[in-house]
């Protein structure tokens, strides 16, 4: 068995768990401590969820999460998955695609369609990009989000045809306006069952008479333009799947997806609309992922493996260099505090908290998703972030918090020092790295306990609250 060879490896794994998950819990860090970095990468990439709370249990106690009519219900249901899964990488990838393929319940109204969309991302998000694009194009939430039900043989609607090129696969500058039209023609007839009634119920936002009816993809051959099309230099009687095949073999697609992956998993890039005008900040990393894309037959997992093993990802300059998104902060903090051991109304408060901090899941601000980066931080959101995290880790009524404190105290021994308590607490909060100045402040705080050699649970909880209020905790 290979083992980590140094403290640097340990910290590198902590970096990986922050980026490819929601931060390592004390248990996860211990589980991975006998593996090499490469082994951990492969373990994460191939993980299968085995611990999420079963849907039947959730639905019995939260019957609203059965029909998922409201956004609190549907996003809360996703939060359960994010918090309780032992394969957080999958949920992180889902969040990545939710940012790229930004669809919103704000327009679609019914959360069941969002759940179906999420299930599609979960199934195809790490697979081959052509499979993902094909299923995205057949995804009812995407069809109604971008009005493809109005894309007819006799009168095309360019919404989906444009966005698949501009936002989802290639980026501006790699196709022409004529390509947009031809692409749109190829997706005519890609709609949902009972199109008129479904679209009207969405527009009228009505659950009457019998609740929402979840949508299902339908190909209508009578409304499909089967004529000859010329797209990206190729000519034929293309349907949507032919268009996707042409898109996916184009080098621009590899580069565009690679840049998105870098933007999300490594370092903040410029906003997407500026990409046509400025080169990537790390062309070598883009090239490594592009090569993996073609070598693997368009596999997203292969691209991410190449990324996680690249020097650009492993570089210390990338560590703790991105601002946590609100959902990363919420999920990571709740997981550190033990997560949910069963259905709990806390899930609604927690998903709402992410919204108050600026990230409403299933409600991206536009088709371009969330900007991220420094945009996550404002005076108001900062107060909410600190208050939320402090409330979670300081709640001694929560068994997970008591367990965390118990672990910290057992690791520091019967008699401790403020330095040891701070070091052990940081290690149990995902191996959080802090500046000397911050560490000094934390030690000073730990020293102020009535009996700092024998800190009480409340003393440790207060220290944890101070740690999650640091500047460093805001980064991932």
């Amino acid at each position, binding site marked *: 068995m290979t083992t980590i060879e140094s403290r640097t490896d340990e910290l590198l794994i902590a970096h990986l768990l922050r980026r490819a998950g929601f931060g390592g819990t004390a248990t996860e860090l211990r589980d991975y401590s006998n593996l090499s970095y490469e082994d951990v990468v492969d373990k994460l990439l191939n993980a299968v969820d085995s611990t999420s709370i079963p849907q039947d249990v959730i639905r*019995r106690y939260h019957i609203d999460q*059965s029909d998922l009519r409201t956004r609190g219900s549907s996003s809360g249901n996703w939060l359960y998955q994010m918090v309780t899964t032992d394969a957080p990488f999958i949920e992180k990838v889902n969040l990545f695609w939710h940012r790229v393929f930004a669809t919103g319940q704000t327009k679609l109204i019914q959360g069941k369609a969002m759940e179906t969309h999420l299930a599609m991302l979960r199934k195809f998000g790490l697979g081959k990009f052509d499979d993902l694009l094909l299923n995205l194009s057949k995804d009812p939430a995407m069809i109604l989000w971008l009005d493809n039900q109005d894309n007819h043989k006799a009168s095309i609607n360019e919404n989906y045809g444009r966005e698949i090129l501009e936002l989802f696969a290639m980026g501006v500058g790699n196709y022409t306006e004529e390509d947009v039209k031809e692409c749109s023609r190829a997706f005519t007839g890609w709609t949902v069952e009972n199109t008129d*009634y479904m679209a009207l119920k969405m527009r009228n936002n009505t*659950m009457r008479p*019998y609740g929402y009816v*979840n949508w*299902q993809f339908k190909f209508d051959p009578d409304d499909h333009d089967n004529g000859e099309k010329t797209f990206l230099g190729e000519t034929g009687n293309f349907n949507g799947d032919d268009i996707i095949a042409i898109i996916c073999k184009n080098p621009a697609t590899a580069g565009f997806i690679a840049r998105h992956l870098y933007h999300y998993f490594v370092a903040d890039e410029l906003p997407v609309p500026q990409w046509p005008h400025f080169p990537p900040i790390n062309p070598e990393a883009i090239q490594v992922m592009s090569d993996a894309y073609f070598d693997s037959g368009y596999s997203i997992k292969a691209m991410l493996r190449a990324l996680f093993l690249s020097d650009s990802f492993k570089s210390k300059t990338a560590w703790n260099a991105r601002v946590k998104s609100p959902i990363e902060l919420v999920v990571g903090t709740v997981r550190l505090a033990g997560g949910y051991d069963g259905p709990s109304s806390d899930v609604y408060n927690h998903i709402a908290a992410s919204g108050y901090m600026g990230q409403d899941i299933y409600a991206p601000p536009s088709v371009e998703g969330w900007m991220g980066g420094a945009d996550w931080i404002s005076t108001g959101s900062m107060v909410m972030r600190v208050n939320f995290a402090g409330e979670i880790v300081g709640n001694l009524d929560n068994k997970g918090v008591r367990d965390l404190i118990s672990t910290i105290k057992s690791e520091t021994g019967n008699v401790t020092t403020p330095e040891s308590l701070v070091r052990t607490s940081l290690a149990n909060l995902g191996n959080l790295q802090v500046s000397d100045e911050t560490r000094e402040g934390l030690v000073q705080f730990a020293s102020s306990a009535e009996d700092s050699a024998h800190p009480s649970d409340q003393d440790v909880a207060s220290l944890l609250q101070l740690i999650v209020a640091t500047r460093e905790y805001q980064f991932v």
Partner: protein
Amino acid sequence: MITQTKSKLNYVDTVGFGADVGGRGFHIPVDLSIRPDGRIYAVNRSPMHRLGIRVGICDVNHGWYHEFGSDGTDDGQFVGPTAITHGPDNRVYIADEELNRITVYTPDGEFISKWGEQGSDPGQINGPAGLKFTSNGDLLVVDHLNNRIQRMTPDGKYISHFGSEGTGEGEFNLPWGIDTDSDPSGNIYIADWRNDRIQRFTSNGKFIDMYGSSGREEGKFDRPSDVAVDQDGFIYVADWGNQRVQMFDSNWNFQQSVRGEATVSPWAQEYLDANADEAEARSRFNPFIEVDTDDPHEISSRVESYLWDPTAIEIDPEGRLIITDSLRHRLQVYQRSNE
């Protein structure tokens, strides 16, 4: 036990439509109780639309009477209503699994009293999920998080209990619905939800037999949420996870499974008549599309006429089966006949 000939269930009608802010209609009804005169009391859970939490009173002929109760913790209010039943004196009893209390109302819905204390000691309750009066006036409470059935007086005094957590005979895993034989035996039936089976007990709680295993095939269950027994001994199971109701004879011989075939109720039609654009678009609506999934929950979300989370079932005085079609905010009515 009675031996029966092969029977079948025939669809009769659909009652109600969605009303999430109160008024005529339902919003996520989770249980119902039927008075001897046929009045149906349906309790609506309505978790994300708190104005929709109430009891609606109607009948199978689409009559609407009134509603009572609302969201809250004050007397007469509820937060997480799960079960409703009528006492011998027609008083109404409602269980609230979040407040861990039983509230008693007059037949018109006026608050009378409340009782219940959270805990696991005898007489305490944790997540009351089902209610049923025995023929001698005791109240059986499905104390589901304690995995037991408690026998109480109508005013909440402990008498006895049976059951414990487990998978063996007489043990439960999060039980839910309850019914009793109407014959003198008074046998008790429990939907043993997470054990995917129905258990039958004598009227004093002695285990008789159990039926069911996990699966989607006929005669198998996926999280059965309720059970009802008619006057001829036929047993009906709300096979919640499989989104259907199954019928058995008293010896557990499978008779039929129904998936639901709801039609537009008069209340729903009045809504459509008042919203011409929806009526016009609905005129081209096919409620029975061919689905591309085999997941029963997903299928029900796409096929409007099917049952979607059929949570509770009751037999009315005419022997009709009334199904609470929870996520479609309506009742589907069936009647058994001999083939």
